């Protein structure tokens, strides 16, 4: 599937400070429908903060954050640390992403369908503690996708995995996101991962200004 021309999300942030340190002067980001953008930068430069600002998890009177084109309840977020709720099994964790009320039998089918889309068929009744890091991330992706977000934010989602697994799963995630045409912003410090997953890579330079530089169209 191809990327549309229509810009569906516009992000404009002026001045972001954390504990007195200025992270950036101004940041502008436009995301097209179905596009996957990867923001690449070293640890601690403010990538996570940027995603949290977009998701309205960070608020401050000193900053001017404008997000147009997407409402708060239309955003999906995959955190760096896999968050699966231990009191629920895999299937019921996925069903947290279900938007509409459906019958119990149908719920099971929906969760199974999502699980098979991330190559985890038959995992419905598994305890979340029994999953490997990669499996947990795939369950989280399935859950986020079930909610059909207009914009999906991925905060270094594979950082807990080893390099090989990270790159394999990055390719797998890209395929899924492209198949479903999910508009996404992904942040990482791994250039290879960014290159695998993204349509466009944006570099966060050392002086913490966002450099809308290179394109990495695939």
């Amino acid at each position, binding site marked *: 599937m191809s990327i549309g021309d229509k810009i569906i999300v516009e992000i404009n942030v002026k001045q972001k400070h954390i504990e007195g340190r200025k992270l950036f002067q101004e940041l502008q980001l436009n995301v097209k429908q179905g596009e996957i953008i990867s923001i690449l930068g070293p640890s601690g430069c403010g990538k996570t903060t940027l995603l949290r600002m977009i998701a309205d998890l960070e608020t401050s009177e000193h900053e001017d954050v404008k997000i147009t084109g997407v409402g708060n*309840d239309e955003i*999906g977020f995959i955190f760096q640390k896999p968050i699966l709720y*231990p009191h629920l099994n895999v299937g019921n964790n996925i069903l*947290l*992403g*279900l938007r509409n009320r459906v019958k119990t039998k149908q719920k099971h089918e929906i969760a199974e369908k999502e699980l098979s889309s991330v190559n985890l068929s038959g995992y419905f009744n598994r305890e979340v503690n029994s999953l490997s890091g990669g499996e947990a991330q795939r369950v989280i992706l399935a*859950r*986020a996708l079930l*909610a059909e*977000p207009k914009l999906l934010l991925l905060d270094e989602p594979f950082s807990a995995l080893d390099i090989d697994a990270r790159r394999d799963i990055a390719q797998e995630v890209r395929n899924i996101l492209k198949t479903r045409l999910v508009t996404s912003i992904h942040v990482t410090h791994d250039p290879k991962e960014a290159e695998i997953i993204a349509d466009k890579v944006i570099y966060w330079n050392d002086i913490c200004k966002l450099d809308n530089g290179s394109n990495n169209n695939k």
Partner: protein
Amino acid sequence: MLKENQQRLLVNSIQWLTVTLFLTLTVLPLLYAIGRLESVTGISAISAFINFFGNQQSMTALKFTLLEATISTIVTVIIGLPIAWYLGRYRWKNIRVFRAILSVPFVTPSVVVAMGFLMLIDSSGPLNWIGIDLRLESGVIGEIANFTGWENPGHFIALIAAHVWFNISLIIRFVEPTLSTMDRTWEEQLRFLPAGQSNISRLRNLWLPILGPAILCSALLCFIFSFTSFALIRWLTPNQNTLETMMAESGGSAGIYGYRIDTSEIVLSTSLVQLVILSLAIILTTHIQKKHSSIHSIVSESNSTKTKPPPNRTSIIVMLLAISYALIPMILVAISSFRIRNPETNEYFFSTKAWSEAWSGDYSTTAIPEALSNSIIYCLFTLAIALPIGWIISSCIARLERENRNYTARIVEIASMIPLALSAVMIGLGILLGLLKWSPELFNWSIIPAIPHIIITTPFVIRILLPAIRSIDPSYYEQARLLGLNPLRSWWHGRVSFLKAPLVVAGALTMAFSLGEFGASWILVRSGSWDTLSVLVDQLMSQPKFNPLIQPMAMAAATVLMSLTFILFFIAEKFRKTGEGSGF
């Protein structure tokens, strides 16, 4: 030198022997007491149980007990949850001090709590000063009584407030550690899913599953402690009987052939009904606590590194109110020991006279120093017995779990909680009727009042030590053995060194609970001559108040008892691990 398997056999035998001895010590006096009461009344335990429900006096006491325990539990949860929430969710500079202050009520001797609330509702107390007269029930409270036809609403409100004060730390102790260790990302993640976009859906899908067992478990314990409350009922609602007070009052004349058979029947039937209700509550609590422990351990593993937000205005107001509520009754006890009424002018003045009189013991059967030394002897004796017993039983349960003998481990664990289902008064009556009335020569054994203390405090020792023993990695011991250390040194380095802090906590709390124990001591001491500080407070307060020094003297004795308990509690707090969700 013993071989490895011989050592194991020896350790196992010691453990089983200790379990058997403890259960015998707990159950045998009770069985003897039941036997004695059956023989005195001529009716079987089952008939007595059935007769209970046909006796109007017993049913009134049962209804009042259930009512006060249920309302106390509901109000405690309603007040305790916001405090736990604000304490756990915000970044407090002195959180350890806050936790300690809010936990103090639970270890405060019940008789001291009763004194604190009596002073709070006293005609010269702060509540009366702001126009709320709970004691004489005039003004607003009187109007409520007239309008609703509710008898003694003031006393009932005071009782509920005292139970809430006493039990609130249970809610905080269970709920706050889970809240404060939970990764905030869990909630943030749910906000991005359809199942967590509203407060109600987050409550249903996150907070209730995570906090539900902790809330239920602490609520059940609140119910149990309010159900078996004795000193507070005795002093705050003297016109009403609970099952506990009814048994205690009938206990003195029960178990004697040909004399007041009715009281023997009351004690027999009431103790059986109470035993059934409390046993069910304890079994349920143990089951839910296991669920809470497993959720808490998963939640603590997620332990958030993210900084909590600084407290906002609402949280500061809630904490200030909570801390004031925790401190006021205790401060009032101390102040009232110096505040003496002038009988001629009815005005109050400050003096140390009550302290010197209480110290010399001119107005009581014992002086403070004598009662203090009795209390300390009993609490040291209790410590010397309850701590090793609790440790050995905890080790036995943990070993059975390691050997995958979970069913047996569970039986031993539930059996070790039996004293909680018996209540202090029942244990006291068990010893009085079961042992002393069969063998009166035991009256000469001055250490008798320490026996119920041992029975009552051992379950607390087990509750504190068991999670710590479970968490010790056996490879430390194995490594020490492989390094060639002898069994004793291996045991010391591989096991005991990990238990130092929990042992100090368990020891300090054992001493604190023993010092403040009232129900069983009241039953036994009034039948003998071994006054403790808590009994001295009760004795002084029971005297007519013509002498204006009597009440301040009782408060002086209560202040000594309270101070000793606080020292022990703060020692325990210093060693307690942050984020511990044991509830004690």
